[in-house]
């Protein structure tokens, strides 16, 4: 009996990252939802000839990031003239071969701004299943082999839960609960979805205002929901509201937290660093810097610094504890996707021509250490796993890594 208890405790203690062999990237901005890979030795000085391991054509458009489970990459896409065909695609990380491509019909409205598309939200995984959400509010769960586990037509259930510009919030998994944030001018809500059958564990009404931010993992139990009014912290399993920050926040870039959720960096009046209190009263504002104003990209924290890409495509570095600005570096922008980091570098791809850039952040000032022109519009955020970076356009999925041997 004791042995069983110990085994169960150990199993619970294992992070999602360890469920499948190798390093995983299980959701938007990675398993820990902070856009960082600690393990990967990713390439730094980039060259098209040496570092593009493979390039695989995709059957449809998409802004969603790839996610990685073991040696499999999962990605969503939407195709046909009205983008009413939804795809969940599984490819092999070694060679880019498409293992399977499951297709579904959109059951909700597919209208969106021409720049975005129906496959905008990044899917999430618990290491065993893939949870794919689309702008038409179809939510699909498949196992890693492509076997269908459940489907929700959220716009069938809630006919006014849509945004005519398109939705983009990426669901995340916290405490075995899929957090889905659907915010728009009409029927807005955030819901905790049961991973097993897709039913609602809880559903909270939200402000009726368009919002493209994603839920933010604070710690193993709590999630921060960002909207025009600010931040609401809820318990992932129950939806119980813990605390709120009501100074307003952006509806495009999402906040980022430190491990354990001890600090949350909110795109609010530039960036506002808030510290949740143990008694759940209004969080303490640690600093606020109006000059650190992210454009579309979400902020990134690496070690003791916070990094912001502003509307002009300038990367700003600041001290994460004080907000003190340290250096600025003009990148080849503009950017819609968010930066990610590994191996002492930041990676981000520009919208125009898909210029994939690596920025060395190990020194006193940042410097661009390499770039590859992928030649296609890229609006999504890269994924990092097993020493490789995966990035997609409307047409292709790329693996960028160091040459073998």
């Amino acid at each position, binding site marked *: 009996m004791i042995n069983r208890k110990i085994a169960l405790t150990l199993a619970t203690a294992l992070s999602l990252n360890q469920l499948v062999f190798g390093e995983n990237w299980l959701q938007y901005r990675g398993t820990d939802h902070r856009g960082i890979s600690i393990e990967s030795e990713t390439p730094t000085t980039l060259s098209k000839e040496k570092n593009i391991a493979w390039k695989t054509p995709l059957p449809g458009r998409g802004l969603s990031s790839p996610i990685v489970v073991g040696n499999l990459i999962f990605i969503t896409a939407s195709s046909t003239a*009205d983008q009413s065909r939804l795809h969940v695609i599984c490819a092999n990380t070694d060679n880019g071969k498409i293992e399977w491509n499951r297709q579904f*019909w959109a059951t909700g409205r597919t209208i969106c701004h021409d720049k975005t598309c129906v496959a905008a939200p990044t899917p999430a995984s618990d290491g065993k299943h893939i949870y794919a959400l689309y702008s038409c509010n179809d939510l699909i769960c498949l196992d890693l082999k492509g076997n269908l586990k459940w*489907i929700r*037509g959220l716009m069938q259930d809630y006919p*006014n839960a849509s945004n*005519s510009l398109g939705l983009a919030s990426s669901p995340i998994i916290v405490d075995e609960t899929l957090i889905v944030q659907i915010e728009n001018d009409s029927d807005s809500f955030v819901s905790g979805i049961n991973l097993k059958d897709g039913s609602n564990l809880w559903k909270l009404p939200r402000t009726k205002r368009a919002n493209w931010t994603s839920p933010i993992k604070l710690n193993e139990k709590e999630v921060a929901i960002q909207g025009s009014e600010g931040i609401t912290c809820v318990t992932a399993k129950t939806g119980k509201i813990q605390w709120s920050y009501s100074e307003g926040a952006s509806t495009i870039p999402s906040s980022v937290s430190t491990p354990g959720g001890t600090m949350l960096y909110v795109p609010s009046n530039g960036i506002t660093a808030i510290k949740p209190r143990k008694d759940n009263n209004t969080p303490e504002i640690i600093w606020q810097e109006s000059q650190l104003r992210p454009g579309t990209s979400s902020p990134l924290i690496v070690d003791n610094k916070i990094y912001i890409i502003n509307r002009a495509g300038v990367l700003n570095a600041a001290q994460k504890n004080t907000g003190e600005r340290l250096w600025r570096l003009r990148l080849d922008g503009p950017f819609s996707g968010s930066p990610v980091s590994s191996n002492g570098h930041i990676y981000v791809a520009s919208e125009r021509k898909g210029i994939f850039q690596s920025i060395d952040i190990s020194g006193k000032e940042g410097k661009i250490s390499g770039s590859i022109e992928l030649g296609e519009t890229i609006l999504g955020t890269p994924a990092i796993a097993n020493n490789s970076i995966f990035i997609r356009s409307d047409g292709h999925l790329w693996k960028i890594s160091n040459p073998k041997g």
Partner: protein
Amino acid sequence: MNSLPLLAEQTPIEAILAIGPEGKGNTKASEAWGKLTTHSDQKTLMMLFDAMNDAGPVASNWLRSAAEVVFKNLEEKQIASSNVLGEYFLNEKNPSKARRFAFELIKRNAPEAANEIIPGLLNDPSPELRRDAISLLIKKGQSLENENKKDSAILIYRQALNSAIEADQVKLLSEALKRLGTEVDLPKHFGFLMRWHSIGPFDNTNRTGFDKVYPPEKEVNLTSEYEGKGQIASWKPIESYDPFGKVDFNKPLGLLKETVAYAYTEFESASTRTAELRLGCKNAWKIWVNGDFIFGRDEYHRGQKIDQYKMKIQLKKGKNTILVKACQNEQTEEWTVQWEFQLRVCDETGVAILASNRKATPTQDKTQRRPRRPKKS
């Protein structure tokens, strides 16, 4: 002694068809999906397709993905046949999306035959199948145009346009024909409703007008007048001159903000039938048909497209009334000037249903100009 009748065990197909809202029935459907996809026989494949005839949108997705796997099983065993699928595809009474899916599977199995079939799909009830046939004609027309064979190109474009229902293809064809000197009556082609009576303005301060019931929602009497927002509201005739049927409240009422207006029209149907109302609107809106509320949405200035909203309705033979409520909000940016909607009546495929007494498409006095700047009311 009477015994209780045994409850018949639910078949896998029945389990999938039984799924309900908010994820109800997903667990049983998942088990059923697992059972169905272990099969690799034509009978199971066709059972899945046949079930799509009775399935709602979400259940159809369960069935579709199961059929995809069963077909792959058949392919792997090299026993996939196009014949039975072909029968399903050829029956135009089957659901459009399912027929398109059947065609795609046939194409995987017999690509040459599928390509031969495409030109014959010009008037198919499935918009996706029809689209392929129209694309072929567009390419042919462009080729003739490039060869400077103007008359032949016009003929081909005209033939394509007669069948085209999707806005992007219709626009492309009408532009091509215009380039070659042939005008197209787009409102008639789409079935846009061009003649209305409008009334307003009513108050929408703080966006509260969407939920308020103003007099036109209780009765439509075109001779009545009401106390509006800062003025008397009375019914006025309004015509659209827009090629895509946009009815602009700014024209009769001025560039107002935080206001509500209504538009009323009558549609003479040749028969009792089902139909679709298809709306494009970037203001908050509600629609009633024959006094029954159909749908409403309180979103402002997020985008407008032809066929943005599709609503199934029942038309009765003779006169049908249509009432549209459109709310303008407080925003003053240039891109929030629009206070308009575009509404058409069509069948499920998207082919226009024209009123039996439809008048010629109205034409505009081109000397009229429209101010663009909004003002706060």
